[in-house]
């Protein structure tokens, strides 16, 4: 079953940032997206999560079209009501966490459950506490985001996304805003999720992590997919010159 299908996605700001990208994510698979800054990785994620509107192409979650393209090549989004339903299929973990600073850790996780999914407070608290325990943050339930380290904040934001029980979870450079000694705790959480067969798309600069955790690696540059395949092939034996040059820079 394909959780996500993207077909011929194009997106321009002033210049064309994404030039005709297609990809599919199957249930239980982890896709790693790597590539230099400005290659369009983050924009691709923002298009998939509908934080940006695309120019043309199709985005399909669970066989439901969020966006189609009419014959003259213009993207047409589903109705707001349909989009709200489709939105529940995915979650997004931001580079800068974007926790709500005025809510305690537990409220950051439970408020969307209560406000958006109309769950009871008790049920939400149960879900929140279970996820905090999973993230090793049970003792921080009543803390505020400003009292946590970057790594802890990111774990809360992962818990917040997981609480809504998405079919697929996107990570936009989840460790880029963290001190090097804190990246490990986030990578471990994502590894654990991969072992539980959580479907994920991860944009990252952590090459060895991407190789270890992903089932499929996509190398992007200049708004196109330059090379893709299984992690061993792409990261250890890249065929394309641009992939080689990029990975070489990372080795050093």
């Amino acid at each position, binding site marked *: 079953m394909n959780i996500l299908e993207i077909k011929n996605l194009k997106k321009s700001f002033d210049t064309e940032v994404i030039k005709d990208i297609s990809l599919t994510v199957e249930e239980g698979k982890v896709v790693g997206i790597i590539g230099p800054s400005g290659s369009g990785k983050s924009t691709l994620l923002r298009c998939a999560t509908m934080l940006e509107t695309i120019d043309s192409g199709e985005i399909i979650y669970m066989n439901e079209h969020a966006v189609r393209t009419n014959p003259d090549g213009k993207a047409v989004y589903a109705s707001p009501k349909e989009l709200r339903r489709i939105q529940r299929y995915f979650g997004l973990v931001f580079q800068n966490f974007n926790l709500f*600073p*005025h809510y305690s850790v537990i409220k950051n996780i439970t408020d969307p459950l209560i406000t*958006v999914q109309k769950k009871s407070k008790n049920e939400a608290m149960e879900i929140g506490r279970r996820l905090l325990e999973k993230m090793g943050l049970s003792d921080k339930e009543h803390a505020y985001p*400003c009292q946590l380290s970057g790594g802890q904040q990111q774990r809360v934001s992962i818990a917040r*996304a997981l609480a*809504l029980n998405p079919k697929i979870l996107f990570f936009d450079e989840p460790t880029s805003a963290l001190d090097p000694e804190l990246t490990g705790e986030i990578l471990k959480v994502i590894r654990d999720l991969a072992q539980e067969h959580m479907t994920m798309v991860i944009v990252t600069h952590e090459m060895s992590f991407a190789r270890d955790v992903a089932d499929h690696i996509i190398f992007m540059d200049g708004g196109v997919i330059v090379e893709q395949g299984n992690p061993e092939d792409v990261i250890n034996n890249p065929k394309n010159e641009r992939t080689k040059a990029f990975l070489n820079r990372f080795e050093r």
Partner: protein
Amino acid sequence: MGYVGHGSVPCPVEFVIKLNGGALVELSVMLSILSKGMLLSVEIFVLTLLFSIPLGFVVTFGRMSKNFIIRNLVKIYISIMRGTPLMLQLMVVYFGPNLIFGIKISNEYRFTAVIIGFVINYAAYFAEIYRSGIESIPVGQYEAAKVLGYNKFQTFMKIILPQVIKRILPAVTNEVITLIKDTSLAYVISIPEMFSQAKALASSQNTLVPYAIAGVFYYIFNYIVAYIMEWIENKFSYYKIS
């Protein structure tokens, strides 16, 4: 004295303090007259805040509207409110209906005019404070809320507004304190608030003491308000905005 010079200003009877043949009054009488004026000042203060704080939100939404016409009309309104003296605005609101439209103005309209004048002036200032607060909230907060499925109303009420309030409280405190002192401008349309009374007393008694007392009253009023605002600010100090 200033208001005597407004030849066309109708001077209300109740405004003239009737003293026994111009005899000197005791300090206690002065205090009681000034206290009554103070009550009126407090009334202007409370009513102005009551209406201008919510109205400021309406104005700020207009100012931030995507509609070109609405946005620019609101911009002009704010520009006039901030670009002309409040004293003049009070006079326009009070005398305007008569001078422009020939409507006969009643004595009761005097107080209404003061409230209207203060409210539309302060709403403009509050609106600009709100706007600065709303625009200072990182876009990531909106994006996180959107991805989590909050609708626009929920996002504003639950995520954005609480953070905006925390950010703008110091600026709002400034305005509120300025308003206390601005209530004295109501004397221009002969509202018997504290400053008007002090002025009347000063001229009839030939002493500056009423002004000194009024100054102390204003200060005490401000001190209490500043204390309350600080207490509210402390209520919001349990978190830091990243």
